[in-house]
């Protein structure tokens, strides 16, 4: 890390103030704007969506956000030049919509399965048939939990 700092300070090709500002800027943008937004959306989903839908929608939004972020500079076309059609030759706005459509199509299929699973397990539990979908009892929850496993559920030490 010292090598990096020394190099940046002594390299003639550097524009240190712009470099540092950008380093600081991406950190702030990610940690104080983008991630909190993502966490907020996650909280809203957990609150307002039925349980079977949460996973699929979370994954769909996650992929959509990342793909949009990556595609954004290309959609803007900032690097395009009139005399060079081989540079960024595609319609990237169109391309982004195609990718999002494919992703949400996949999510829709997943949600359809999830709904069916949740509906059929509800039907089974209502009619007293033991659920096949619920996984085996966890050792550290419920009346059969031993003292030692219950103790293990303390918050993780990082």
């Amino acid at each position, binding site marked *: *890390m*010292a*090598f*990096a700092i020394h*190099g*940046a300070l002594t*390299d003639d*090709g*550097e524009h240190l103030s*712009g*470099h540092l*500002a*950008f*380093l600081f800027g991406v*950190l702030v943008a*990610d*940690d104080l704007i983008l*991630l909190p937004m993502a*966490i907020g959306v*996650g*909280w809203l*989903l*957990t609150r307002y*969506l*039925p*349980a*079977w*839908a949460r*996973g699929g929608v*979370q*994954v769909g939004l*996650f*992929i959509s956000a*990342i*793909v949009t*972020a*990556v595609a954004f*500079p*290309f959609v803007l076309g*900032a*690097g*395009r*030049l009139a*005399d060079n*059609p*081989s*540079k*960024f*030759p*595609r319609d*990237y706005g169109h391309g*982004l919509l*195609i*990718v999002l459509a494919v992703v949400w199509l996949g999510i829709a299929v997943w949600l359809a399965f999830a709904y069916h699973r949740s509906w059929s397990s509800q039907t089974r539990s209502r009619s007293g048939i033991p659920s096949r979908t619920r*996984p085996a009892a*966890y*050792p*550290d929850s419920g009346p059969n939990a031993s003292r030692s*496993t219950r103790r293990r559920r303390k918050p993780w030490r*990082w």
Partner: protein
Amino acid sequence: MLRGLLHRPFPTPPDWLRRGPLRRRAFSSRVRSPRVTSQLGLLLGVAVATCFVTGLLSHLIQHPPSWFWWPSRPVGLYRVTQGVHVATGFATVGLVTAKLWSVYPKLWAWPPVRDLAHALERLSVLALVAAVLFQLVTGILNVAGWYSAMPFAFIASHYWTAWLAIGGLLLHIAVKLPIIRGALSRRPAGEPPVGGGLTRRGLLGAVGAVVGVVTLATVGQTISPLRTVSVLAPRRPDLGPQGLPVNNTALEAGVHVVAADPGYRLSVRGPAGTLSLSLDDLAALPQATVELPIACVEGWSATARWTGVPVRDLVTRVGGQPGRDHVVVQSMQRGSAYAISTVDRSHAAHPLSLIALRVNGETLHVDHGYPCRLIAPNRPGAMQTKWLQSVTVVTG
């Protein structure tokens, strides 16, 4: 004594400051755990290391220190290393987002700094995160050609920040190693029954999915069979004049007038004197036809058939010795760092290194370097100098 200084506890801030994200149970997701963080961290570490090694190679080839040597075979090695560099960078965006999400509560740890050692560690993690994000964002901006968004010199900044990132990563792994080992070796005590929503495996699956989607959408610029699938790829490797993309046109380079000059002569200098060769003179010399790729730093590459005079033949004609002497080529372009490039001894002696006059059966298009250009194996596109004005053989 140093240990004492590093671990002397700082005063704890008053509890009433512990608000908002600093509160004890501010972040509720039960998907977070050292295990998920360690798994994401492992993948991220591999990705960052891959980008670092391939990126460093690319830098060293273009700014070779005296001890550096780069082979001329396999001829497509650079297209692979740089293709991997850019594809890995794209893929890492989703991965780093998931990792940062999983450790987000640690940003709001309480107390914020326990002691000096803790403060230094937190600072180094901040530097690591900033550096990795910087590399990803600037890398993508460079591929997108969006230089006005970067108020600094891309090449220098991207290079030095890479060292910051790799240093921060090594320090981070060293500090967290006990936790990582423990988290990865312990069998999970069963998935906590999260009421709907993602489980740990679901999160890892989601990360795999996002990496897959982004990669498929962009890698067609490097992996030609995927060129129609990759709707977000910055280039189509078969699209451009004579079936090859162009990065720098003759107009942009300011050579469109001088390149068309009918009185053009290539100046070939060596120990035995100087030759002044017109295009007809060059075409009259024994020609070779080779298949070589153009591979750019932005990750795209495309193969073409090039016809021209082998560099080593020109070296011999002016009294040089292939294998001993290196060659410096200069472009008609002015004011660019890439207007001059050096072909080292082994590459200059290589039978596939040409001063090319034709590509894919046609006379070189002016955007591809007419009247003639350098094409050599395993060489970054920016160093395959176009619009050659002179070729100088340097002894030793």
